[in-house]
């Protein structure tokens, strides 16, 4: 950040000091999205569980939310299906019943609007485990055992699709720790918890944000969908002091490249999961959720158009 002389060191230090001085209410507010995300993640699982085990109904004879995250039906009416699973099944040589196809289209459309990896931060049950590992890792001096390119996940995604063709079954669905977890919680865990422990240890001791940030093909799929997101983190370059605290808490810090943000006005890359860590933390309130159409791009000369990255 040396080439940004307008941001003085002292302003950044003041921001950090402001952050550490947070107490009481403002500290709690700093967790608002975290709390909401956990409520959303566990709430959705609870709806599934209640419908499966306690016969929760919307009205008489109409189950509330049956199935699981792979495919479900809300109010006996609205089908939903995991588009990544449906895609794998398609590659395995099966075109599913219309109900699944409509369900997949609905889910895909929803996440294309709110942000693909909103699934990750707000729905996926594995996220609670990887968040815990990430949180602990931030407080423990554990060096990375081996680095891994964050684009690895796209290779895993491609492998999942190729293997679906080769093996004739939806390749990721048959080994997915995400499936094992949500299915396990609703329908019986078996040995699925071992996968969770493995992910936890991997993230904690081997590679920070290792699973969600580097390997998970589902996250990769949703990252690709997320490019069209209409809810995004807006960046206010006038108030930002470049203290860099946001990138420290972000599980995908590469999306918070402040130089790029100055040009785009908001976080563009699909890897952003709209988790809201940065918005809650930013001591200058420079980062906030906003609707993409309302975010006007700041009038900065376009550098990218002429120089090749």
């Amino acid at each position, binding site marked *: 950040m040396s080439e940004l002389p307008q941001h003085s060191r002292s302003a950044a230090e003041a921001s950090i000091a402001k952050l550490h001085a947070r107490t009481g209410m403002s500290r709690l507010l700093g967790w608002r999205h975290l709390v909401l995300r956990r409520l959303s993640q566990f709430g959705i699982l609870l709806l599934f569980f209640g*419908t*499966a085990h306690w016969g929760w109904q919307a009205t008489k004879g109409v*189950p509330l939310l*049956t*199935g*699981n995250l*792979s*495919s*479900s*039906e809300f109010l006996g009416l609205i*089908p939903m*299906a*995991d588009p990544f*699973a*449906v895609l794998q*099944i398609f590659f*395995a*040589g*099966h075109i*599913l*019943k219309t*109900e*699944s196809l409509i*369900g997949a289209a609905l889910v895909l459309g929803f996440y294309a609007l709110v942000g693909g990896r909103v699934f990750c931060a707000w729905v996926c049950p594995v996220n609670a485990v990887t968040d815990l590992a990430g949180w602990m890792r931030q407080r423990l001096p554990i060096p990375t055992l081996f680095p891994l*390119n964050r*684009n*690895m996940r796209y*290779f*895993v995604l*491609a*492998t999942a699709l*190729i*293997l679906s063709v*080769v*093996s*004739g*079954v*939806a*390749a990721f*669905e*048959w*080994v997915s720790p995400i*499936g*094992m977890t949500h*299915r*396990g919680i*609703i*329908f*019986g*865990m*078996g*040995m*699925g918890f*071992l*996968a969770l422990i493995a992910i936890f240890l991997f993230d904690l001791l081997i590679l920070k944000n290792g699973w969600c940030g580097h390997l998970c093909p589902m996250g990769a799929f949703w990252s690709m969908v997320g490019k069209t997101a209409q809810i995004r983190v807006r960046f206010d370059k006038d108030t930002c002091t470049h203290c860099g605290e946001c990138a420290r808490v972000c599980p995908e810090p590469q999306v918070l490249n402040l130089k790029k943000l100055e040009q785009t006005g908001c976080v563009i890359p699909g890897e952003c999961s709209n988790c809201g860590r940065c918005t809650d933390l930013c001591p200058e309130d420079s980062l906030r959720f906003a609707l993409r159409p309302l975010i006007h791009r700041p009038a900065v000369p376009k550098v990218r158009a002429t120089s090749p990255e």
Partner: protein
Amino acid sequence: MSVKNPARRDFLVKAAQGTAVAACGGLLWDYLLRQEVRAHPYALRPPGALAEGDFHAACIKCGQCVNACPYDTLKLAGAGGDMPIGTPYFTPREIPCYLCPDIPCMKACPTGALSPELEDINASRMGLAVIDLENCLSWKGLRCEICHRECPLKGRAIVLEAHPRGISKHAMFFPIVHSDACTGCGICEKACPTTEAAIRILPHKLVQGKIGDHYRLGWTEKSEITQDFKPGAATESGAPLKPGKKAPGVDYLNEGGL
């Protein structure tokens, strides 16, 4: 190209490395998949399930069939057990399928892994009841016949055959299963009073043989079999007579001067 454009070379090398890692991982992954898919040949599927290979491909593991079953018959396999992961199955000795006439499980299935073509629950073929003749009480000569009495398709799926027995004037009644009517619901297996069920449901491919078409059951044919094999008419060119239609296996019996 490498010298001229280091960025491009860098990218290509990275892509190659990524592909190599994905390929190594892929092989291991593929191995796991194949192990998992053939984990358990004994899995009994809900009514209307596609053939096992297609079922494995089409079922999205959502458990809506499990939720729909009013008897809690169906279970969704957990990870690492002996049933293929995440797929629905049932264990008749615990809870059999009670053959709901409206087939709620099949209707709940969003993928078609439980085929909507199944219209009549009695046409479902989840498995086949097989009797252990050595441990069936009826075949031992006691009057049990519970499976026959409980079978929703009694008289068709299970019939009783009376056999006289030498030592007394009381006949023995042997239950016999007919595969053309047995649904594999497992109500008989659940009802069987022996310590270990003497009648149990197994997937067809594990128990059903196949006689092959080189055997012909003469008494079931409308016409004499030999009529089919009369020598063909003499050809115009006066060539030797050729045999007419052949049945497989008949040639080596009928030719060569036997």
